[in-house]
């Protein structure tokens, strides 16, 4: 592949047309390197460099420089995300940001590993395959850190299902088609592999029409001794799993550019094909190998295929000789570069000391999984690849991992101003509540949840639909002989991001944590998953920076370290950028699952309390949205009070004085009260306090608030001494009644509220 004589324009064209997705500066670096070696690069070498340097693998934006009106900010990952983790300094963090997944301590020598991935662009082109392989990929991330996958989570963002066809841009698929395909993909992969899908969310917004989002998370378990990461020179690189084919070529470089009309033609081959049963077999074999302690390291083959996996480990030992001929192929493939970067699914790389090789191979064979040595690690400082008797790549690892290119991102944008709408209180608030309950982002996701097996393994203690109400978090009891639980929750609200990315991120952290705390979780480890529009647009870049700042501020405030994360940038379509979307996934622990609390109200006569402060925060709320407003008063988080409220709730739950607890999010108190009541099949009468217009109080979306049911009011009050706690009323009857200023403003039968939420016509 001659590049020494190419002009700048030709270099740019080669990068684009060859789907290398490298910048001109990077192409210059490549050109310079090969000029110094006095030869032209091979196609394998160019592709290998493109994989390693891709946004997907290299995170160039996060690690680059942001130019702001206040000066330069370097490496926003290190400055904000990693810095928060460092500042928190949690001793129970076992491995953060290092490996395929973040790992924290659980019980005795047991660890939990947690990771979430995005698979947005593949899901836009081929929803079923894109989502299925997204699930498969994140499960392999867990396997790649020696974890046994025990639960999946999925957060999905789609265009409105009733989006008119006439407004769809060319090459964009209908939201309903994408929705159905993505859900079947997740269903097929998770169910067939026998991993319960226990937590998630589905969100609809017009900005996702051209670029849906698929966040796949996986939780794993391992013992400390299982975690082996000591590949040495002389160890064998063992490729295990499915055969390699042409599916998933240029997946990472495709992920690093914007979607366009021709994506279907140019990048269909970037979507991989999944086979969950193959991965199930790999999982069995991997767990046997880890139990026997026979391997020295492992990583999964995901983005960038062999190229990323092999070079990542080779970098640790200092070099490798690869024999590409050994790679088992689905069909004859003549091009070495295709084999090298193919992202065919269900493949893992193990590193095995030579004396253990036979035993490892025989374990894989007994599970009917192919395992083939493809190279030997060394300390040559080089990545050398042999294919059909020729050296097809001979690259210095120092060059591959030593790119001096620093991405500069212009974040000199002006914050948009928003206005607060003025309107009279609607006369029929019951109707408003029923309407909000039926809005797509609030309404029941039961039909989807029931397509996912959330019970397999028999460890799901708190389920996604406990008593047919929307649970706040899922709890698993993964160890026989221990009552300790792992608590999974998430938080995100793209609507707030339309007003302020900073407060969106703060709210996402607050929501993930309050969901977790609502069932009895604590000691939160969190994941940050960014899906963003192109950072080359300054307004997107500034929002990204703001969100990262909030991550630092509130990760530290809640004492919640980030343990892993992922960024998917360039989520663009002909309809423009997606709404800024930061998903925070929280992993908490519950010391004794028998003390966990669910959101359904339990008993007539029990008192209902509102924990937390209700403020004039309606911007981005579903109340405003129901009237077509966005507003400006986005919910904020009180850095000082919020963590104290959460701790007080935890103490109250531990003391047994909380019978039910539900977090307040979209739709505020009104929706939370309705959900808790219809889940418990009981009514309630509450009285709103004076001082705020009743409709605003009912639907404010202020953060760090919970609806709490108690039998022991005095005990509850003690736990919240000095913190905002308001007695709302009592449980009873079969209607939900809200009164304010002496008048009943909401009065609806529990059944009616449930039907509105379930979408049952009345």
């Amino acid at each position, binding site marked *: 592949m001659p590049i020494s004589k190419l002009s700048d324009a030709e270099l740019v064209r080669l990068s684009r047309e060859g789907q290398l997705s490298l910048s001109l500066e990077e192409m210059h670096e490549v050109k310079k390197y090969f000029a110094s070696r006095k030869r032209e690069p091979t196609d394998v070498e160019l592709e290998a460099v493109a994989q390693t340097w891709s946004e997907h693998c290299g995170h160039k934006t996060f690690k680059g420089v942001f130019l702001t009106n206040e000066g330069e900010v370097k490496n926003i990952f290190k400055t904000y995300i990693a810095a928060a983790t460092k500042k928190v300094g949690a001793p129970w963090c076992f491995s953060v940001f290092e490996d395929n997944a973040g790992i924290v301590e659980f019980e005795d020598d047991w660890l939990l590993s947690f990771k979430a991935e995005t698979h947005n662009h593949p899901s836009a082109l081929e929803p079923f395959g894109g989502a299925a392989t997204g699930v498969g990929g994140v499960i392999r991330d867990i396997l790649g850190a020696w974890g046994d996958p025990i639960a999946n989570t999925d957060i999905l963002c789609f265009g409105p299902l009733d989006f008119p066809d006439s407004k769809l841009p060319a090459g964009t698929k209908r939201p309903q088609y994408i929705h159905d395909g993505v859900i079947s993909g997740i*269903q097929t992969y998770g*169910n*067939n*592999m*026998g*991993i319960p899908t226990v937590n998630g969310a589905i969100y609809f917004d017009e900005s996702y029409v051209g670029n849906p989002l698929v966040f796949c998370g996986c939780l794993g378990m391992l013992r400390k001794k299982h975690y082996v990461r000591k590949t040495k020179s002389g160890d064998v690189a063992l490729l295990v799993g499915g055969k390699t084919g042409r599916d998933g070529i240029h997946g990472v470089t495709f992920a690093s550019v914007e979607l366009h009309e021709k994506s279907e033609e140019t990048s269909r081959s970037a979507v991989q094909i999944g*086979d*969950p*049963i193959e991965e*199930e*077999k790999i999982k069995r074999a991997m767990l046997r190998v880890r139990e026997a302690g026979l391997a020295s390291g492992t990583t999964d083959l995901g983005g960038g295929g062999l190229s990323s996996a092999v070079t990542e480990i080779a970098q640790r030992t200092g070099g490798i000789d690869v024999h590409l001929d050994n790679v088992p192929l689905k069909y004859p493939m003549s091009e070495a570069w295709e084999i090298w970067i193919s992202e065919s699914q269900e493949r893992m790389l193990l590193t095995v000391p030579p004396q253990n090789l036979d035993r490892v191979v025989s374990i894989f064979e*007994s*599970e*009917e999984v192919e395992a083939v040595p493809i190279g030997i690690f060394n300390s040559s400082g080089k990545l050398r690849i042999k294919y059909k008797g020729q050296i097809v790549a001979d690259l210095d690892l120092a060059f591959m991992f030593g790119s001096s290119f620093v991405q500069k991102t212009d974040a000199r944008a002006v914050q948009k101003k928003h206005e607060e709408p003025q309107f009279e209180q609607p006369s029929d608030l019951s109707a408003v509540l029923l309407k909000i309950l039926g809005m797509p982002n609030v309404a029941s996701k039961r039909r989807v*949840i*029931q*397509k*996912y*097996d*959330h*019970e*397999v*393994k*028999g*460890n*799901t*203690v*708190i*389920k996604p*639909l*406990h*008593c047919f109400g929307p649970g706040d978090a899922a709890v698993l*009891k993964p160890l*026989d002989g221990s009552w300790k639980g792992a608590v999974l929750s998430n938080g995100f609200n793209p609507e707030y991001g339309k007003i302020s990315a900073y407060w969106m991120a703060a709210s996402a952290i607050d929501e993930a944590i309050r969901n977790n705390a609502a069932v009895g979780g604590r000691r939160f480890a969190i994941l940050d998953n960014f899906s963003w529009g192109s950072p080359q647009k300054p307004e997107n870049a500034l929002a990204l920076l703001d969100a990262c700042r909030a991550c630092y501020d509130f990760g530290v405030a809640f004492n919640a370290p980030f343990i892993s994360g992922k960024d998917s940038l360039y989520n663009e379509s002909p309809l423009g950028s997606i709404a800024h979307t930061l998903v925070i996934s929280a992993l908490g622990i519950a010391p004794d*699952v*028998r003390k*966990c*609390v*669910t959101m*359904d109200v*339990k008993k007539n006569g029990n008192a209902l309390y509102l924990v937390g402060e209700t403020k004039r925060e309606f911007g981005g709320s579903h109340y405003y949205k129901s009237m077509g407003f966005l507003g400006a008063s986005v919910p904020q988080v009180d850095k000082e009070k919020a963590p104290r409220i959460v701790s007080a709730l935890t103490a109250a739950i531990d003391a047994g004085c909380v019978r039910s607890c539900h977090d307040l999010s979209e739709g505020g108190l009104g929706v939370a009260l309705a959900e808790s009541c219809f889940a418990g099949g009981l009514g309630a009468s509450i009285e709103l306090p004076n001082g705020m217009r009743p409709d605003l109080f009912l639907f404010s979306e202020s953060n760090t608030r919970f609806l709490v049911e108690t039998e022991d009011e005095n005990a509850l009050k003690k736990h919240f001494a000095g913190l905002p706690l308001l007695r709302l009323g009592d449980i009873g009857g079969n209607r939900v009644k809200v009164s304010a200023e002496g008048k009943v403003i909401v009065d609806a039968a529990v059944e009616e509220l449930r039907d509105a939420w379930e979408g049952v016509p009345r």
Partner: protein
Amino acid sequence: MKACVMRAPGTNCDSEMVRALKEVGFDAPLVHINDVLREKNLAQYDALVFPGGFSYGDYIRSGAIWGKKFVAVLKNELRDFVAAKKPILGVCNGMQVLVEAGILPRTSDYPEAAMASNAFGYRCMWTWLRVEKNVCGTAGLYKKGEVLRAPIAHGEGRFTVVPGTEKKTLAELEGNDQIVFRYCRPDGSPAHGEYPWNPNGSLDGIAGICNPEGNVLAMMPHPERASFFWQFPDWTRGEKRSDGLRLFRGLAETVRRSI
């Protein structure tokens, strides 16, 4: 007391099955189907268990590949096991396997029933089950008319027979006391084919059947996921159930009596 919990590629409900069996006193080794087929020694076990999952991807039809693979190699051994009145339990994919293997509804060279696609597609949800016969060892320690809870998680669980023979088959199954569990409403009244009480459209609401001798039991709902109180969907409301575990206790008693 040794129950062989088998697994094929794609089996994935084995860990909870092993746990439930151990809880009632079984030694419950988890054995790969290839080892079972190689050893050809079913007689060493007191009970055989086919757990749930997606064996061999459930390509063709659910349970078809595992069922055929098993009888292709071990037909006689399996029939001997059945004839010796030793218990066999199949849950979910295990039920599909036993039907495909020609063990249920009775021993036959070809399947006499099918576990067809659910009327409303795959569902993971809790169901109510009515016990249709009195304490039958393999089928647990239940009384006729009792209402149990257990979750289903399958896409192909609609018990079906050759069209036109439904009445005759049902009469036979009733006559032989082979219908063990039917889906029902929470109060135990018949589902009458109505969703969600009958979640998959199963013929006459059949959720679990046994062979005429009563030693082979198969069911689509998962008793191993309803064995401990904390597995139930409403345990936080105060009820402490263990419906599924009583099935395994019955199994254990049967085996204890026989050895």
